[in-house]
């Protein structure tokens, strides 16, 4: 009897291992197809109108992935990442203007933008991360407005006129193609970083903080250190992306560099796709940013896209609160396990001793009420 059980368990384990291998192969092939499609995109769709959509979408893929690796993983929703985005843009613009950097050499200023983002993130994080959740959100909004006001009022930021980018020696026909691949590299790099962090111990600690920060501290997690590291990394990448955005747009002004809708868009993208996942925010950015841009271009009434964004946010919160990717994953899992005995998410491959006798007890929620 025992031998039969062991054989059955081994067979289940083999089946599960084969299934995991199959999934990995499918995921690998899908990634290769996506990568090829992304690289070939401007060759197939050469119209600058189309590549303009793609460039903005990729800028937001990078920005939301950077935002997500802090806010999505830790649960601290930042509405102040425009501080980094705008600061990155202004850094490149001011440095190029004051140091007379021209041509493609301006791209050498991007690391400086990232460094400025990191330098701002440290004191910003040290202040904002001393408080939890809702208060944190309020502080990030306050810091955002401080930066916007500074951009309006300091002379070195050009006041309300802003800063213009130097001329790039690229022909109009290749201008978008160059930026497409630059933003694609930014997006891919940020996704890879987010993926590696999520798999690492650092990412695990961030997710533990999201679930129960005090408990995580009681298990040795240096919460402040972990949160601040993620915040600084996130701000650094966002500032770099802001620098790229500035060079593409060729100018930055206070309301565009420090735009309150920037953070709201990031939040919406992450919530739509799936907060804290890797693919979710990417999908959200690929859906929302082109849509938003289309509405802005198509309808001169600039408020229409904002109104629709608000409606979309309500729809997401009401009908897919976990986001598209986790919800779709759940549906697929249900479809695949339909007709099989309900095993939940418990691994069938177990060599553990018999489960303790409470396994059939009432669920935790009920027990807690006793």
């Amino acid at each position, binding site marked *: 009897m025992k031998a039969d059980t062991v054989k059955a368990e081994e067979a289940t384990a083999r089946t599960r291992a084969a299934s995991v291998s199959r999934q990995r192969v499918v995921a690998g092939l899908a990634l290769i197809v996506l990568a090829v499609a992304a690289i070939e995109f401007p060759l197939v769709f050469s119209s600058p109108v189309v590549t303009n959509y793609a460039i903005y979408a990729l800028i937001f893929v990078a920005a939301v992935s950077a935002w997500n690796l802090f806010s999505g993983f830790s649960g601290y929703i930042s509405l102040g990442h425009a501080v980094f985005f705008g600061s990155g843009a202004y850094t490149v613009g001011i440095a190029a203007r004051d140091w007379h950097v021209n041509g493609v050499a301006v791209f050498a200023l991007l690391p400086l933008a990232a460094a400025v983002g990191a330098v701002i993130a440290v004191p910003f994080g040290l202040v904002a991360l001393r408080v939890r959740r809702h208060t944190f959100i309020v502080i990030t909004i306050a810091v955002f407005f401080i930066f916007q006001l500074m951009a309006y009022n300091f002379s070195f930021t050009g006041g309300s006129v802003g800063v213009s980018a130097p001329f790039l020696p690229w022909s109009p026909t290749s201008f978008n193609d160059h930026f497409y691949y630059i933003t694609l590299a930014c997006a891919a790099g940020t996704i890879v970083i987010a993926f590696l962090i999520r798999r*690492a*111990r650092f990412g*695990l*600690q961030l*997710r*533990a903080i*999201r*679930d*129960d920060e*005090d*408990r*995580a*501290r*009681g*298990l*040795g*997690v*240096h*919460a402040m250190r972990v949160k601040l590291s993620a915040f600084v990394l996130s701000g650094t990448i966002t500032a770099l992306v802001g620098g790229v955005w500035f060079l593409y747009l060729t100018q930055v002004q206070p309301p565009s560099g420090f735009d309150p809708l920037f953070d709201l868009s990031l939040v919406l993208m992450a919530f739509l796709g799936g907060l804290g996942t890797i693919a979710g925010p990417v999908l959200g950015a690929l859906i929302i940013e082109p849509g938003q841009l289309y509405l802005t271009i198509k309808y001169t009434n600039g408020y229409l896209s904002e109104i629709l964004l608000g409606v979309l946010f309500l729809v997401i919160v009401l009908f897919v609160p976990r986001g598209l990717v986790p919800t779709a994953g759940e549906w697929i899992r249900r479809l695949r396990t339909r007709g099989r005995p309900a095993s*939940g*998410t*418990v*691994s069938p491959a*177990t*060599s*553990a*001793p*018999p*489960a*303790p*006798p*409470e*396994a*059939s*007890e*009432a*669920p*935790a929620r*009920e*027990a*807690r009420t*006793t």
Partner: protein
Amino acid sequence: MTALLRTEGVRKAYGGVHALDSCTVEIDEGSVAGLIGPNGSGKTTLFNVITGYAKADAGQVYLADKRITNIAPEKVFAHGIGRTFQLTRIFASLTVLENMLVASKHGGAAARSRAMEQLEFVGIAGHHAALAGTLSYGQRKLLELAYVLVSDPAVILLDEPAGGVNLSLVNHITDRIRELNAAGKTFLIVEHNMEFVMGLCDRVTVLDSGAVVAAGPPAIIRTDRRVLNAYLGDDLADDDPHPGEQA
């Protein structure tokens, strides 16, 4: 035996309520110590002060003569004190194995291997890939115990380990504690289940209104008049010699 964990004159007040009042407790190395008292007597507050979740207004906490008063929870953990909570606190969106790895001091294959060992020890290794939020209450209790063990703490504080679980699981937990204690682990246990406390603990400390009213072996505590008074009040204590069974 020498005291491994010691609190000296710890005071803690929340507004006008004195949760702890000159509380002095000693836990011998290698012992299983019990901490009992009526609801609101300050047991969990003492746990919180020891583990850094609450700051003491006065008094000191020592671990092996090292002062650890009012240091942060992560530092208390690093010094070798692990604790569980009265209402289990797990990371619901992480898998059971990931919960274990949060508490590991290092990552990598060795940490995973040790985590699996601890899960097997408490009997929930089969659920390692499940989301912790899907576990039953009893399994969550075991998970909490397992992830406290994964970093090999010197002292383990258990807050009502037998609370809200059935008798079979109580026995399962009791066996695990005995095995760990035999291997040298020191325990401080808050519990209302008197049979559990009296059967398991070498020494029991009784708190009432934030102060220690008695301390000693279970057999003596069971009949101590001050304990009877604490649980039943002065009038009723005269009639009932077994306060724990009423708690």
